[in-house]
């Protein structure tokens, strides 16, 4: 008897879940801009995943006789000063950008979430954490990342660390302001009155209600991380050559801009596609998840 009833209850919630998911899916699909964003980003993700299959030659392979060739049937995006194929290098570059962006999102979200939740819940921690956050946010993002790179040395892991440090405060602030609203709700007071433990209140009841702003923020952080990685590599303080990243291909392109425009044009288009895709998705998610801006827009 009991087993059966929980069974139907489970079925019912499953039905409701799929129903809700359908509504969300339909609303995402009805947002044309978000769909465009997803398509742009899918292209980049497919490039990154299938790079070894669709590259026309290894990204590091040099051929002296093929130096600085303009785009052609053989070299779709032309070649660089060492005769390396720019198309293949841009493909492999997408792996760096996506790996860096994704790692930064995960690391900064985890640390930012913990800091934001605890500073919203424990008011005496709040002052301390938020002053440090304010201090860190006073550094322009690119500069803070450059300074950390200068100290740690140009390595891809360090690129991830430095950009994560830049965005942990941003996430912490977003989560904190969402959590401050949630913690004043009556149901939190009720749980506390019932003797709910703090960590349980924080993780089980407050954290899930801070997810929408966190997810929106994470999308934009992915976009910023791609731009900052490209900037660092462009300046020579990011992904070390010869490993191709969009930024360091652009840096080669800058010095050869008079002879070979194609080296700087194609990686730039790839960056714009990625960042535009992410911004479109972020705007779409915000319209969807944040009722406040919804009202202002409609």
């Amino acid at each position: 008897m009991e087993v059966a009833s929980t069974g139907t209850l489970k079925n019912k919630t499953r039905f409701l879940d799929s129903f809700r998911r359908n509504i969300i899916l339909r609303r995402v699909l009805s947002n044309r801009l978000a769909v465009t964003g997803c398509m742009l980003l899918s292209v980049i993700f497919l490039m990154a995943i299938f790079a070894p299959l669709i590259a026309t030659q290894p990204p590091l392979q040099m051929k002296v006789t093929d130096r600085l060739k303009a785009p052609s049937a053989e070299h779709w995006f032309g070649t660089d000063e060492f005769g390396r194929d720019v198309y293949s290098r841009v493909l492999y570059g997408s792996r760096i950008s996506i790996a860096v962006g994704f790692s930064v999102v995960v690391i900064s979200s985890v640390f930012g979430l913990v800091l934001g939740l605890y500073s919203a819940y424990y008011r005496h921690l709040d002052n301390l954490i938020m002053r440090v956050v304010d201090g860190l946010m006073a550094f322009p993002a690119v500069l803070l990342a450059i300074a950390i790179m200068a100290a740690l040395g140009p390595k891809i892991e360090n690129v991830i660390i430095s950009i994560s440090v830049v965005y942990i405060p941003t996430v912490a602030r977003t989560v904190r302001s969402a959590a401050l609203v949630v913690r004043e709700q009556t149901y939190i007071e009720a749980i506390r009155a019932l003797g709910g433990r703090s960590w349980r209140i924080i993780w089980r009841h407050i954290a899930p209600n801070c997810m929408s702003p966190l997810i929106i923020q994470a999308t934009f952080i992915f976009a910023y991380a791609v731009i900052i990685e490209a900037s660092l590599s462009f300046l020579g303080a990011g992904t070390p050559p010869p490993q191709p990243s969009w930024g360091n291909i652009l840096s080669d392109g800058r010095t050869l801009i008079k002879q070979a425009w194609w080296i700087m044009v194609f990686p730039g288009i790839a960056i714009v596609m990625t960042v535009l895709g992410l911004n479109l998705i972020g705007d779409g998610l915000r319209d969807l998840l944040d009722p406040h801006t919804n009202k202002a827009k409609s």
Partner: protein
Amino acid sequence: MAKYILKRILYLLPVLAVVAVVDFVIIHLTPGDPAAVILGSDATDMDLAKLREQLGLNLPIYIQFGRWLWGVLHGDLGWSIFMDMSVSTAIWEHLGPTVSLTLLAEVIAIVVALPLGVVAAANRGTWIDQSFMTLALLGISIPSFWIGLNFILLFAVQLNWLPAAGYQPLSNGLVNHLKYLIMPAVSLGIMQGALIARMTRSSLLEVLNENYIRTAEAKGLSRFVIIFKHALRNAFIPILTVIGLTFAVLIGGAVVTETVFNIPGIGKLIVTSVMRRDYAVIQGAILMTAVAYVLINLVIDLMYVLIDPRVRLSK
């Protein structure tokens, strides 16, 4: 009002303290012996010991911090071994181009973005709104240094209208100054402008939803008067805030833009110093940009008082 201003200034002290600590700590994250990094692998033990002594590396870290902070508070940011001059002198010599570049970029951004945002909000939902906002979205998605590279390709390499790179100080004539600065300033200003345009639009839309705007409409005021006299003033605080906050984006963008256009500013100074591991300069220059950012936002917070009497009257 005096209380508000005093409160804002007092609030800065802990932030500046954190800025100083973070700036110091980052540079001391360097793994290994900084003296060995500076002198290279073929340095003798004697030289290493001497440099360590000179840089105070043998002292406990908190004493090093205390000494450094004491110096900073007295205007001494340290000594650059590579340039053989004080860090403050180096920053001072590179300050002009960066100030010119960021100011021009900010002015271009505001002059273009405010009207775009207002027009988009006033024509909400029409094709004008949609095309302006698509432009703004593109603006925040294209890295400024890539726009700069495209400008060089188009206006310098192909059309030969403008110099590809370099810098002329204002003392060599305004036209000359602007000829070198216009491409970097526009490419830097685009992202800034796009952010301001988006904020202007959404902030104005929010205000246009208020009841008092409906009252103004009901009593028959023209759309022009409603927007410019009643709505824009109230929409201005978020716009101003975004201008202040995105100043960090502007300074960060300037670092890369200066490298693209070979402008001898603070950004170029920092990048060169990173390449030769001139930690004193990196530390000093980054500290100064963070302090500048904090002070600019203080000025903006104080401007609220001028724009919005409610800030003046509260508390």
